[in-house]
Protein backbone atom coordinates (compact mmCIF):
# COMPACT_ATOMS: atom_id res chain seq x y z
CA UNK A 1 0.00 0.00 0.00
CA UNK A 2 2.64 2.53 1.10
CA UNK A 3 6.39 2.13 0.54
CA UNK A 4 8.98 4.75 1.44
CA UNK A 5 12.62 4.34 0.38
CA UNK A 6 15.20 6.65 1.99
CA UNK A 7 12.89 9.64 1.97
CA UNK A 8 14.34 12.96 3.19
CA UNK A 9 12.86 16.42 3.34
CA UNK A 10 14.88 19.46 4.33
CA UNK A 11 13.76 22.95 5.28
CA UNK A 12 16.93 24.99 5.30
CA UNK A 13 19.10 23.52 8.03
CA UNK A 14 16.15 21.68 9.60
CA UNK A 15 15.60 18.17 8.29
CA UNK A 16 11.92 17.41 8.80
CA UNK A 17 12.43 13.87 7.45
CA UNK A 18 15.76 12.08 7.34
CA UNK A 19 16.30 8.85 5.43
CA UNK A 20 12.91 7.39 6.27
CA UNK A 21 12.32 3.86 4.98
CA UNK A 22 9.34 1.66 5.83
CA UNK A 23 6.38 0.03 4.24
CA UNK A 24 2.77 -0.42 5.19
CA UNK A 25 0.74 -3.27 3.76
CA UNK A 26 -2.85 -3.10 2.66
CA UNK A 27 -5.21 -3.38 5.62
CA UNK A 28 -2.68 -2.37 8.23
CA UNK A 29 -3.41 -0.02 11.13
CA UNK A 30 -0.35 2.11 11.91
CA UNK A 31 0.19 4.78 14.55
CA UNK A 32 2.74 7.49 13.91
CA UNK A 33 4.06 8.70 17.25
CA UNK A 34 6.67 11.25 18.19
CA UNK A 35 7.14 14.57 19.96
CA UNK A 36 6.16 17.97 18.57
CA UNK A 37 8.21 18.83 15.50
CA UNK A 38 9.29 15.24 14.87
CA UNK A 39 8.06 15.34 11.27
CA UNK A 40 4.74 13.47 11.52
CA UNK A 41 2.77 16.02 9.55
CA UNK A 42 5.52 16.28 6.96
CA UNK A 43 5.52 12.50 6.53
CA UNK A 44 1.75 12.38 6.02
CA UNK A 45 1.86 15.27 3.55
CA UNK A 46 4.60 13.60 1.57
CA UNK A 47 2.53 10.43 1.29
CA UNK A 48 -0.49 12.52 0.30
CA UNK A 49 1.46 14.21 -2.50
CA UNK A 50 1.16 17.63 -0.92
CA UNK A 51 4.88 17.94 -0.38
CA UNK A 52 7.66 16.70 -2.66
CA UNK A 53 10.54 14.96 -0.87
CA UNK A 54 14.09 16.16 -1.53
CA UNK A 55 15.39 12.60 -1.67
CA UNK A 56 14.00 9.09 -1.92
CA UNK A 57 11.02 7.42 -3.51
CA UNK A 58 7.44 6.98 -2.33
CA UNK A 59 5.05 4.39 -3.70
CA UNK A 60 1.40 4.73 -2.74
CA UNK A 61 -0.86 2.09 -4.26
CA UNK A 62 2.01 1.33 -6.62
CA UNK A 63 2.20 4.89 -7.92
CA UNK A 64 5.31 6.96 -7.56
CA UNK A 65 3.83 9.96 -5.79
CA UNK A 66 6.92 12.17 -6.03
CA UNK A 67 7.00 11.72 -9.78
CA UNK A 68 3.26 11.93 -10.41
CA UNK A 69 2.16 14.74 -12.73
CA UNK A 70 0.09 17.51 -11.11
CA UNK A 71 -3.01 16.52 -13.08
CA UNK A 72 -2.89 12.92 -11.83
CA UNK A 73 -2.66 13.72 -8.14
CA UNK A 74 -6.38 14.53 -7.72
CA UNK A 75 -7.32 11.04 -8.93
CA UNK A 76 -4.95 9.39 -6.48
CA UNK A 77 -6.31 11.55 -3.67
CA UNK A 78 -9.86 10.45 -4.36
CA UNK A 79 -8.92 7.02 -3.09
CA UNK A 80 -7.54 8.48 0.12
CA UNK A 81 -9.02 10.30 3.09
CA UNK A 82 -6.97 12.98 4.79
CA UNK A 83 -7.71 14.59 8.17
CA UNK A 84 -5.41 17.62 8.36
CA UNK A 85 -4.09 18.79 11.71
CA UNK A 86 -5.40 22.32 11.22
CA UNK A 87 -8.87 21.15 10.14
CA UNK A 88 -9.33 22.90 6.80
CA UNK A 89 -12.99 23.41 6.01
CA UNK A 90 -14.68 25.89 3.69
CA UNK A 91 -15.88 28.29 6.38
CA UNK A 92 -18.71 29.81 4.33
CA UNK A 93 -20.28 26.49 3.43
CA UNK A 94 -22.50 24.44 5.67
CA UNK A 95 -21.24 21.30 7.33
CA UNK A 96 -23.33 19.22 4.93
CA UNK A 97 -21.90 21.00 1.87
CA UNK A 98 -18.37 20.51 3.16
CA UNK A 99 -18.78 16.80 3.68
CA UNK A 100 -20.67 16.14 0.45
CA UNK A 101 -18.01 17.83 -1.69
CA UNK A 102 -15.74 14.77 -2.19
CA UNK A 103 -18.79 12.85 -3.37
CA UNK A 104 -19.80 15.59 -5.82
CA UNK A 105 -16.27 15.60 -7.18
CA UNK A 106 -16.47 11.86 -7.73
CA UNK A 107 -19.89 12.11 -9.33
CA UNK A 108 -21.83 10.11 -6.74
CA UNK A 109 -25.63 10.22 -7.20
CA UNK A 110 -27.46 12.73 -5.04
CA UNK A 111 -29.58 10.25 -3.06
CA UNK A 112 -26.63 8.01 -2.35
CA UNK A 113 -24.53 11.04 -1.40
CA UNK A 114 -27.09 12.28 1.08
CA UNK A 115 -27.24 8.89 2.75
CA UNK A 116 -23.48 8.62 3.06
CA UNK A 117 -23.03 12.17 4.40
CA UNK A 118 -25.69 11.54 7.03
CA UNK A 119 -23.99 8.34 8.12
CA UNK A 120 -20.56 9.98 8.31
CA UNK A 121 -21.75 12.94 10.35
CA UNK A 122 -23.60 10.63 12.68
CA UNK A 123 -20.47 8.54 13.18
CA UNK A 124 -18.55 11.58 14.48
CA UNK A 125 -21.51 13.00 16.41
CA UNK A 126 -22.14 16.32 14.64
CA UNK A 127 -25.27 15.41 12.68
CA UNK A 128 -27.18 18.14 14.56
CA UNK A 129 -24.89 20.81 13.01
CA UNK A 130 -25.52 19.78 9.37
CA UNK A 131 -26.97 23.15 8.34
CA UNK A 132 -24.51 25.35 10.26
CA UNK A 133 -21.68 27.24 8.56
CA UNK A 134 -18.46 25.30 9.11
CA UNK A 135 -16.69 28.49 10.18
CA UNK A 136 -19.11 28.89 13.08
CA UNK A 137 -18.31 25.55 14.67
CA UNK A 138 -16.23 25.02 17.77
CA UNK A 139 -12.75 23.60 17.25
CA UNK A 140 -13.74 20.09 18.32
CA UNK A 141 -16.75 20.14 16.04
CA UNK A 142 -14.63 21.24 13.08
CA UNK A 143 -12.19 18.47 13.79
CA UNK A 144 -14.96 15.91 13.72
CA UNK A 145 -16.41 17.32 10.48
CA UNK A 146 -12.96 16.87 8.93
CA UNK A 147 -13.00 13.22 9.97
CA UNK A 148 -16.46 12.83 8.48
CA UNK A 149 -15.27 14.37 5.22
CA UNK A 150 -12.26 12.05 5.11
CA UNK A 151 -14.31 8.87 5.51
CA UNK A 152 -17.35 9.81 3.43
CA UNK A 153 -15.93 8.44 0.17
CA UNK A 154 -14.91 5.12 1.82
CA UNK A 155 -11.21 5.56 1.14
CA UNK A 156 -8.76 2.74 0.60
CA UNK A 157 -6.26 4.61 2.74
CA UNK A 158 -7.03 7.00 5.61
CA UNK A 159 -4.39 9.46 6.79
CA UNK A 160 -5.33 11.23 10.03
CA UNK A 161 -3.13 13.90 11.60
CA UNK A 162 -3.85 14.36 15.29
CA UNK A 163 -7.62 13.98 14.87
CA UNK A 164 -8.37 14.13 18.58
CA UNK A 165 -6.28 17.17 19.57
CA UNK A 166 -9.32 19.28 20.38
CA UNK A 167 -11.54 16.52 21.72
CA UNK A 168 -12.24 15.47 25.29
CA UNK A 169 -11.55 11.93 26.45
CA UNK A 170 -14.99 10.55 25.82
CA UNK A 171 -15.07 11.87 22.26
CA UNK A 172 -11.49 10.78 21.62
CA UNK A 173 -12.48 7.27 22.64
CA UNK A 174 -15.39 7.40 20.21
CA UNK A 175 -13.13 8.54 17.38
CA UNK A 176 -10.65 5.76 18.17
CA UNK A 177 -13.48 3.27 18.04
CA UNK A 178 -14.65 4.76 14.74
CA UNK A 179 -11.17 4.41 13.24
CA UNK A 180 -11.07 0.79 14.39
CA UNK A 181 -14.41 0.15 12.72
CA UNK A 182 -13.27 1.75 9.49
CA UNK A 183 -10.12 -0.35 9.62
CA UNK A 184 -12.18 -3.45 10.18
CA UNK A 185 -14.13 -2.60 7.02
CA UNK A 186 -10.89 -2.87 5.03
CA UNK A 187 -9.38 0.62 5.02
CA UNK A 188 -5.67 0.98 5.69
CA UNK A 189 -5.27 3.53 8.51
CA UNK A 190 -2.25 5.72 9.25
CA UNK A 191 -2.81 7.86 12.33
CA UNK A 192 -0.42 10.50 13.69
CA UNK A 193 -1.08 11.24 17.34
CA UNK A 194 0.41 12.26 20.68
CA UNK A 195 -2.45 10.92 22.64
CA UNK A 196 -1.30 7.87 24.69
CA UNK A 197 -4.87 6.86 25.38
CA UNK A 198 -5.82 6.83 21.69
CA UNK A 199 -2.63 4.94 20.88
CA UNK A 200 -3.45 2.31 23.45
CA UNK A 201 -7.02 1.94 22.19
CA UNK A 202 -6.04 1.63 18.56
CA UNK A 203 -3.97 -1.46 19.25
CA UNK A 204 -1.92 -1.08 16.05
CA UNK A 205 1.63 -1.12 14.90
CA UNK A 206 3.50 1.96 16.25
CA UNK A 207 6.08 3.88 14.20
CA UNK A 208 8.13 6.19 16.40
CA UNK A 209 9.50 9.32 14.79
CA UNK A 210 12.01 11.65 16.42
CA UNK A 211 13.74 14.60 14.72
CA UNK A 212 12.80 13.24 11.30
CA UNK A 213 14.09 9.68 11.84
CA UNK A 214 12.25 6.48 12.61
CA UNK A 215 13.58 5.40 16.00
CA UNK A 216 11.38 2.40 16.57
CA UNK A 217 8.82 0.24 14.75
CA UNK A 218 6.77 -2.26 16.77
CA UNK A 219 7.44 -4.94 14.14
CA UNK A 220 5.82 -4.63 10.77
CA UNK A 221 4.73 -8.29 10.75
CA UNK A 222 2.95 -8.24 14.09
CA UNK A 223 0.71 -5.32 13.10
CA UNK A 224 -0.36 -6.69 9.73
CA UNK A 225 -4.04 -7.52 9.51
Amino acid sequence: MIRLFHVSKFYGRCSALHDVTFHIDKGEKVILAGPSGAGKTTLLRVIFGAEVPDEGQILVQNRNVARLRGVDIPYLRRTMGFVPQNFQLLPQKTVYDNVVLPLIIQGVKRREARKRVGASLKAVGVEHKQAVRAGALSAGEQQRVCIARAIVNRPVLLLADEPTGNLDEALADEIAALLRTIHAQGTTVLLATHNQRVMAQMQGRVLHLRAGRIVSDSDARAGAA
Partner: protein
Amino acid sequence: MMRAWYLVREALTNLRVYRGSVAIGIVTTAFALACFGVFLLLYLNLHNLAGSLQRGIDVVVYLNPDAPEQTVAEVRRRLREEPAAVTVSVVSKAQALREFRDAFPDDALFLGEMGDNPLPVSFVVTVSPGFQTPESVSAFAERVEGFPGVAHVRYHQDWIDTLALVVSYFEFGAVVIGVILAVATVTIVGNTVHLSLQARREEIEILRLIGATGRFIAVPHVIEGAMLGAVGGGLALALLKGAFEFLRFELYASGWFDGLERILTFFPDPVSLLLVLAGMALGCGGSVFSIMGLIKTRQG
Protein backbone atom coordinates in the same frame (compact mmCIF):
# COMPACT_ATOMS: atom_id res chain seq x y z
CA MET B 1 -25.47 15.93 -13.42
CA MET B 2 -24.99 16.78 -9.77
CA ARG B 3 -21.53 17.96 -10.66
CA ALA B 4 -22.65 20.34 -13.44
CA TRP B 5 -25.37 21.72 -11.22
CA TYR B 6 -22.84 22.16 -8.42
CA LEU B 7 -20.49 24.15 -10.67
CA VAL B 8 -23.18 26.62 -11.73
CA ARG B 9 -24.60 26.94 -8.23
CA GLU B 10 -21.10 27.48 -6.93
CA ALA B 11 -20.58 30.36 -9.38
CA LEU B 12 -23.84 31.97 -8.23
CA THR B 13 -22.94 31.44 -4.57
CA ASN B 14 -19.55 33.03 -5.14
CA LEU B 15 -21.22 36.03 -6.75
CA ARG B 16 -23.34 36.39 -3.64
CA VAL B 17 -20.75 35.61 -0.97
CA TYR B 18 -18.04 37.76 -2.51
CA ARG B 19 -20.45 40.46 -3.59
CA GLY B 20 -18.03 43.13 -2.41
CA SER B 21 -15.27 41.98 -4.70
CA VAL B 22 -17.78 41.22 -7.43
CA ALA B 23 -19.23 44.73 -7.30
CA ILE B 24 -15.72 46.11 -7.46
CA GLY B 25 -14.96 43.93 -10.44
CA ILE B 26 -18.13 45.00 -12.23
CA VAL B 27 -17.56 48.69 -11.62
CA THR B 28 -13.93 48.43 -12.70
CA THR B 29 -14.83 46.53 -15.84
CA ALA B 30 -17.58 49.01 -16.60
CA PHE B 31 -15.33 52.03 -16.13
CA ALA B 32 -12.50 50.54 -18.13
CA LEU B 33 -14.79 49.50 -20.97
CA ALA B 34 -16.58 52.86 -20.85
CA CYS B 35 -13.26 54.70 -21.23
CA PHE B 36 -12.50 52.54 -24.21
CA GLY B 37 -16.06 53.00 -25.48
CA VAL B 38 -15.95 56.79 -25.21
CA PHE B 39 -12.85 56.71 -27.31
CA LEU B 40 -14.38 54.33 -29.83
CA LEU B 41 -17.49 56.49 -30.08
CA LEU B 42 -15.42 59.61 -30.62
CA TYR B 43 -13.44 57.85 -33.29
CA LEU B 44 -16.51 56.49 -35.01
CA ASN B 45 -18.21 59.87 -35.16
CA LEU B 46 -15.18 61.83 -36.26
CA HIS B 47 -14.62 59.23 -38.92
CA ASN B 48 -18.24 59.60 -40.05
CA LEU B 49 -17.94 63.37 -40.05
CA ALA B 50 -14.75 63.29 -42.08
CA GLY B 51 -16.42 60.90 -44.47
CA SER B 52 -19.48 63.10 -44.90
CA LEU B 53 -17.28 66.15 -45.49
CA GLN B 54 -15.27 64.27 -48.05
CA ARG B 55 -18.42 63.17 -49.83
CA GLY B 56 -19.43 66.76 -50.77
CA ILE B 57 -16.83 67.11 -53.50
CA ASP B 58 -17.91 69.43 -56.28
CA VAL B 59 -15.98 70.25 -59.38
CA VAL B 60 -16.66 73.73 -60.81
CA VAL B 61 -16.13 74.20 -64.53
CA TYR B 62 -15.73 77.84 -65.67
CA LEU B 63 -16.32 78.64 -69.34
CA ASN B 64 -14.71 81.51 -71.16
CA PRO B 65 -16.64 84.71 -70.24
CA ASP B 66 -17.50 85.23 -73.87
CA ALA B 67 -18.60 81.63 -74.64
CA PRO B 68 -21.72 81.53 -76.87
CA GLU B 69 -24.91 79.67 -75.91
CA GLN B 70 -23.99 76.83 -78.24
CA THR B 71 -20.68 76.11 -76.47
CA VAL B 72 -22.51 76.14 -73.13
CA ALA B 73 -24.94 73.51 -74.38
CA GLU B 74 -22.14 71.42 -75.89
CA VAL B 75 -20.07 71.40 -72.68
CA ARG B 76 -23.17 70.55 -70.71
CA ARG B 77 -23.91 67.58 -72.95
CA ARG B 78 -20.35 66.25 -72.70
CA LEU B 79 -20.32 66.64 -68.91
CA ARG B 80 -23.59 64.70 -68.67
CA GLU B 81 -21.93 61.85 -70.57
CA GLU B 82 -19.05 61.62 -68.07
CA PRO B 83 -19.46 58.58 -65.80
CA ALA B 84 -17.87 60.49 -62.88
CA ALA B 85 -20.54 63.22 -62.96
CA VAL B 86 -23.71 62.58 -61.03
CA THR B 87 -25.44 65.92 -61.33
CA VAL B 88 -24.52 68.87 -63.49
CA SER B 89 -26.05 72.27 -62.76
CA VAL B 90 -25.56 75.50 -64.63
CA VAL B 91 -24.72 78.78 -62.91
CA SER B 92 -25.67 81.65 -65.23
CA LYS B 93 -23.84 84.97 -65.36
CA ALA B 94 -26.54 86.72 -63.28
CA GLN B 95 -26.56 83.91 -60.71
CA ALA B 96 -22.78 84.06 -60.47
CA LEU B 97 -22.94 87.77 -59.69
CA ARG B 98 -25.51 87.21 -56.95
CA GLU B 99 -23.46 84.44 -55.41
CA PHE B 100 -20.31 86.50 -55.60
CA ARG B 101 -22.03 89.36 -53.79
CA ASP B 102 -23.25 87.02 -51.07
CA ALA B 103 -19.88 85.38 -50.63
CA PHE B 104 -17.69 88.48 -50.68
CA PRO B 105 -19.82 91.43 -49.55
CA ASP B 106 -16.73 93.62 -49.02
CA ASP B 107 -15.14 93.00 -52.34
CA ALA B 108 -18.51 93.22 -54.05
CA LEU B 109 -18.74 96.90 -53.16
CA PHE B 110 -16.89 97.84 -56.27
CA LEU B 111 -18.52 95.26 -58.54
CA GLY B 112 -21.64 97.34 -58.54
CA GLU B 113 -19.61 100.16 -59.96
CA MET B 114 -18.56 98.13 -62.95
CA GLY B 115 -20.73 98.47 -66.02
CA ASP B 116 -20.83 94.96 -67.47
CA ASN B 117 -21.12 91.64 -65.53
CA PRO B 118 -17.60 90.20 -65.95
CA LEU B 119 -18.40 86.79 -64.40
CA PRO B 120 -18.45 83.70 -66.65
CA VAL B 121 -21.03 80.92 -66.91
CA SER B 122 -20.01 77.86 -64.87
CA PHE B 123 -21.14 74.29 -64.19
CA VAL B 124 -21.18 72.66 -60.78
CA VAL B 125 -20.57 68.93 -61.12
CA THR B 126 -21.20 66.52 -58.25
CA VAL B 127 -18.76 63.63 -58.39
CA SER B 128 -20.16 60.12 -58.00
CA PRO B 129 -18.99 58.21 -54.88
CA GLY B 130 -16.97 55.79 -56.98
CA PHE B 131 -14.79 58.61 -58.30
CA GLN B 132 -14.19 60.48 -55.05
CA THR B 133 -10.56 59.56 -54.58
CA PRO B 134 -8.13 62.45 -55.14
CA GLU B 135 -6.67 60.65 -58.18
CA SER B 136 -9.99 60.11 -60.01
CA VAL B 137 -11.10 63.67 -59.33
CA SER B 138 -7.92 65.18 -60.73
CA ALA B 139 -8.05 62.89 -63.79
CA PHE B 140 -11.64 63.93 -64.41
CA ALA B 141 -10.76 67.62 -64.02
CA GLU B 142 -7.88 67.36 -66.47
CA ARG B 143 -10.10 65.73 -69.10
CA VAL B 144 -12.79 68.39 -68.71
CA GLU B 145 -10.21 71.19 -68.98
CA GLY B 146 -9.55 69.94 -72.52
CA PHE B 147 -13.19 70.53 -73.63
CA PRO B 148 -13.50 73.44 -76.09
CA GLY B 149 -14.79 76.60 -74.44
CA VAL B 150 -13.69 75.63 -70.92
CA ALA B 151 -11.48 78.28 -69.33
CA HIS B 152 -10.68 76.72 -66.01
CA VAL B 153 -11.66 73.79 -63.74
CA ARG B 154 -11.58 74.30 -60.02
CA TYR B 155 -11.86 71.66 -57.32
CA HIS B 156 -10.59 71.59 -53.76
CA GLN B 157 -7.60 69.39 -54.50
CA ASP B 158 -5.52 70.81 -51.64
CA TRP B 159 -8.41 70.60 -49.29
CA ILE B 160 -9.15 67.01 -50.25
CA ASP B 161 -5.52 66.01 -49.89
CA THR B 162 -5.21 67.70 -46.51
CA LEU B 163 -8.39 66.10 -45.29
CA ALA B 164 -7.19 62.68 -46.42
CA LEU B 165 -3.90 63.24 -44.63
CA VAL B 166 -5.62 64.47 -41.47
CA VAL B 167 -7.95 61.49 -41.52
CA SER B 168 -5.06 59.07 -41.98
CA TYR B 169 -3.09 60.70 -39.16
CA PHE B 170 -6.13 60.72 -37.01
CA GLU B 171 -6.64 57.04 -37.71
CA PHE B 172 -3.04 56.32 -36.83
CA GLY B 173 -3.40 58.21 -33.54
CA ALA B 174 -6.71 56.48 -32.95
CA VAL B 175 -5.18 53.04 -33.36
CA VAL B 176 -2.32 53.95 -31.00
CA ILE B 177 -4.58 55.41 -28.29
CA GLY B 178 -7.10 52.60 -28.83
CA VAL B 179 -4.42 49.97 -28.30
CA ILE B 180 -3.17 51.73 -25.17
CA LEU B 181 -6.69 51.94 -23.77
CA ALA B 182 -7.41 48.33 -24.65
CA VAL B 183 -4.22 47.19 -22.93
CA ALA B 184 -5.10 49.31 -19.90
CA THR B 185 -8.60 47.83 -19.82
CA VAL B 186 -7.33 44.27 -20.04
CA THR B 187 -4.70 44.93 -17.37
CA ILE B 188 -7.06 46.61 -14.95
CA VAL B 189 -9.79 44.01 -15.31
CA GLY B 190 -7.31 41.13 -15.18
CA ASN B 191 -5.75 42.55 -12.05
CA THR B 192 -9.08 43.04 -10.37
CA VAL B 193 -10.01 39.43 -10.99
CA HIS B 194 -6.56 38.35 -9.86
CA LEU B 195 -6.77 40.22 -6.57
CA SER B 196 -10.24 38.98 -5.80
CA LEU B 197 -9.09 35.41 -6.44
CA GLN B 198 -6.12 35.86 -4.11
CA ALA B 199 -8.58 36.05 -1.23
CA ARG B 200 -9.77 32.57 -2.16
CA ARG B 201 -6.42 30.84 -2.07
CA GLU B 202 -7.25 28.80 0.99
CA GLU B 203 -10.50 27.70 -0.56
CA ILE B 204 -8.60 26.38 -3.56
CA GLU B 205 -6.10 24.62 -1.32
CA ILE B 206 -8.91 22.86 0.50
CA LEU B 207 -10.53 21.78 -2.74
CA ARG B 208 -7.26 20.28 -3.90
CA LEU B 209 -7.06 18.45 -0.60
CA ILE B 210 -10.21 16.49 -1.34
CA GLY B 211 -9.19 15.49 -4.84
CA ALA B 212 -10.72 18.23 -6.99
CA THR B 213 -9.11 18.59 -10.41
CA GLY B 214 -7.91 21.95 -11.65
CA ARG B 215 -10.85 22.09 -14.01
CA PHE B 216 -13.37 21.46 -11.25
CA ILE B 217 -11.87 24.31 -9.24
CA ALA B 218 -11.62 26.66 -12.20
CA VAL B 219 -15.02 26.31 -13.85
CA PRO B 220 -17.13 28.18 -11.25
CA HIS B 221 -14.63 31.03 -11.21
CA VAL B 222 -14.64 31.26 -14.98
CA ILE B 223 -18.45 31.28 -15.08
CA GLU B 224 -18.39 33.92 -12.38
CA GLY B 225 -15.85 35.98 -14.32
CA ALA B 226 -17.95 35.76 -17.47
CA MET B 227 -21.09 36.93 -15.65
CA LEU B 228 -19.21 39.72 -13.94
CA GLY B 229 -17.68 40.85 -17.21
CA ALA B 230 -20.99 40.73 -19.08
CA VAL B 231 -22.71 42.83 -16.42
CA GLY B 232 -19.76 45.24 -16.46
CA GLY B 233 -19.97 45.47 -20.24
CA GLY B 234 -23.71 46.09 -20.08
CA LEU B 235 -23.19 48.79 -17.48
CA ALA B 236 -20.53 50.41 -19.65
CA LEU B 237 -22.94 50.34 -22.59
CA ALA B 238 -25.68 51.94 -20.50
CA LEU B 239 -23.28 54.64 -19.29
CA LEU B 240 -22.16 55.38 -22.83
CA LYS B 241 -25.69 55.45 -24.22
CA GLY B 242 -26.82 57.78 -21.44
CA ALA B 243 -23.89 60.14 -21.91
CA PHE B 244 -24.34 60.04 -25.68
CA GLU B 245 -28.04 60.87 -25.58
CA PHE B 246 -27.41 63.66 -23.07
CA LEU B 247 -24.73 65.15 -25.28
CA ARG B 248 -26.85 64.91 -28.40
CA PHE B 249 -29.74 66.61 -26.66
CA GLU B 250 -27.47 69.39 -25.43
CA LEU B 251 -26.11 69.88 -28.93
CA TYR B 252 -29.60 69.98 -30.34
CA ALA B 253 -30.75 72.49 -27.73
CA SER B 254 -27.78 74.76 -28.29
CA GLY B 255 -28.14 74.60 -32.05
CA TRP B 256 -24.69 76.03 -32.63
CA PHE B 257 -23.68 73.45 -35.18
CA ASP B 258 -26.93 72.88 -36.96
CA GLY B 259 -27.49 69.32 -38.05
CA LEU B 260 -24.50 67.90 -36.18
CA GLU B 261 -26.80 66.08 -33.82
CA ARG B 262 -28.21 64.27 -36.83
CA ILE B 263 -24.77 63.18 -37.99
CA LEU B 264 -23.87 61.80 -34.53
CA THR B 265 -24.44 58.07 -34.35
CA PHE B 266 -24.22 55.60 -31.49
CA PHE B 267 -22.69 52.17 -32.01
CA PRO B 268 -24.69 49.96 -34.35
CA ASP B 269 -26.28 47.06 -32.46
CA PRO B 270 -23.63 44.47 -33.38
CA VAL B 271 -20.91 46.71 -31.93
CA SER B 272 -22.96 47.21 -28.76
CA LEU B 273 -23.27 43.47 -28.44
CA LEU B 274 -19.56 43.18 -29.06
CA LEU B 275 -18.86 45.53 -26.14
CA VAL B 276 -20.85 43.29 -23.80
CA LEU B 277 -19.12 40.23 -25.24
CA ALA B 278 -15.77 41.98 -24.79
CA GLY B 279 -16.61 42.49 -21.11
CA MET B 280 -17.54 38.83 -20.86
CA ALA B 281 -14.35 37.75 -22.60
CA LEU B 282 -12.30 40.01 -20.34
CA GLY B 283 -13.91 38.62 -17.20
CA CYS B 284 -13.55 35.08 -18.47
CA GLY B 285 -9.98 35.59 -19.60
CA GLY B 286 -8.97 37.31 -16.39
CA SER B 287 -10.43 34.43 -14.38
CA VAL B 288 -8.78 31.73 -16.47
CA PHE B 289 -5.46 33.49 -16.32
CA SER B 290 -5.59 34.07 -12.56
CA ILE B 291 -6.97 30.70 -11.60
CA MET B 292 -4.38 28.91 -13.72
CA GLY B 293 -1.68 30.79 -11.84
CA LEU B 294 -3.19 29.78 -8.51
CA ILE B 295 -3.73 26.16 -9.49
CA LYS B 296 -0.37 25.61 -11.12
CA THR B 297 1.88 27.14 -8.47
CA ARG B 298 1.64 24.46 -5.80
CA GLN B 299 1.55 20.76 -5.80
CA GLY B 300 -0.24 20.89 -2.39
